C-alpha cells in the first residue's frame, strides 16, 4: 500500500496557516494535531535567580510571567538538558518588557518584544537571571508551541436544485473551508451562510473522505512549517523506535 498524500495551503503565514491535507486517515491527522500541541519541545524560562525585586509583584509571579513569554527555538540546535541563560535588569520608573530580556544565546530571543512583565515605580527595580529549558507542552503549557491547532473535515457543497418557493428560509451555516466546484472557499466570504452564496437554491453538503483542513497557529517560538515538520519527525522517530524494539 503506498500513500498518496496531497497538501494545499489556503492561508499561509509564519505564525498562522490553513492547509488542506488529502489522503490521510483520521487517526493520522489526529496524531499530527496532538503532537503539534503536546510533543514538540520549545524553550521557556523555568527557573529564575532573583537578585533584586522591589516591584509590587512577588518573585514567583514574575517567574510565571517570564515563563509564559515565548522564546525562539531554532530546530535541531538544542537537546533536552540544555540550558539557556537570560537576564533582565530594569530600574523604575519604567515598565519591564519581554524585549528587555538579554539572552546569552543569539538564536534564543523573546518572540514578542512588547509583553509587559511588570510596571516599576520610582525606586523599584527588577534584576534577575533566568534559565530557559527545552520541554514539551505535555510538561507545562508554556512549552506548547502550537496554539489553537485543529482540523475540520473538508466539506463539499453542491447545488442540487431550486429551493421550495414557499418554504420559510432558514440560514444554512457552514464553517471553515469548503469545496465548491473544486475550489477551496473560506466560508467567511459569504458570512458562513450558504443561503447567501446560493440564494434560492437547494444545496447538499457532504464530508470529503480523508480530507482535512488544518488550522495551525504558533506562539512565535517557531514557524508553522517548522512546527508541522517537527511533529512529523516526532511521530516518525517513535515508530522507528518501536520498529527497532520489536526487531530484536
Amino acid at each position, binding site marked *: 500500500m503506498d500513500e498518496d498524500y496531497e497538501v494545499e495551503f489556503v492561508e499561509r503565514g509564519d505564525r498562522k496557516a490553513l492547509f488542506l491535507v488529502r489522503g490521510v486517515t483520521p487517526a493520522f491527522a489526529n496524531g499530527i494535531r496532538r503532537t503539534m500541541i503536546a510533543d514538540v519541545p520549545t524553550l521557556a524560562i523555568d527557573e529564575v535567580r532573583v537578585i533584586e525585586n*522591589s516591584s*509590587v*509583584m512577588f518573585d514567583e*509571579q514574575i517567574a510565571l*510571567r517570564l515563563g*509564559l*513569554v*515565548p522564546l525562539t527555538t531554532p530546530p535541531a540546535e538544542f537537546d533536552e538538558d540544555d540550558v539557556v541563560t537570560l537576564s533582565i535588569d530594569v530600574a523604575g520608573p519604567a515598565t519591564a518588557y*519581554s524585549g528587555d530580556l538579554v539572552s546569552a544565546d543569539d538564536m534564543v530571543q523573546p*518572540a*514578542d*518584544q*512588547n*509583553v*509587559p*512583565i*511588570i*510596571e516599576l*515605580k520610582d525606586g523599584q527595580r527588577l534584576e534577575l537571571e533566568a534559565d530557559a529549558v527545552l520541554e514539551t507542552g505535555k510538561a507545562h*503549557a508554556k512549552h*506548547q508551541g502550537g*496554539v*489553537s491547532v485543529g482540523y475540520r473535515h473538508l466539506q463539499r457543497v453542491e447545488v442540487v436544485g431550486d429551493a421550495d418557493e414557499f418554504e420559510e428560509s432558514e440560514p444554512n451555516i457552514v464553517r471553515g473551508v469548503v469545496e465548491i466546484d473544486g475550489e477551496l472557499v473560506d466560508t467567511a466570504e459569504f458570512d458562513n451562510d450558504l443561503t447567501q452564496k446560493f440564494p434560492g437554491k437547494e444545496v447538499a453538503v457532504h464530508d470529503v473522505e480523508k480530507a482535512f483542513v488544518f488550522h495551525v*497557529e504558533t*506562539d*512565535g517560538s517557531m514557524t508553522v512549517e517548522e512546527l508541522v515538520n517537527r511533529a512529523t519527525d516526532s511521530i516518525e522517530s517513535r515508530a522507528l523506535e518501536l520498529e527497532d524494539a520489536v526487531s530484536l
Partner: protein
Amino acid sequence: MMVPVRCFTCGNVVGEHWEEFKARTREGDEDPEEVLDELGVDRYCCRRMLVSHKDLVDIVSPYQ
C-alpha cells in the same frame, strides 16, 4: 494587576497587544472591536483577556 501574558483558554500571547489596545481604546476613543480586529486578536477567548483587564499597579503600589 498586570495584563496576562497569554490567553487563559488558548495560550495565544495577548500581552503583546495590551499597551497599544490601552492607548487606543482607554486613553483614545477608538472602538475596541475595530482595534482588536486590527491587532489580529481574533478569538473571543483572547479578546475578553484585553477587554476585561484593568491595570492595578497604581492602586496597590502605595501599600508596599
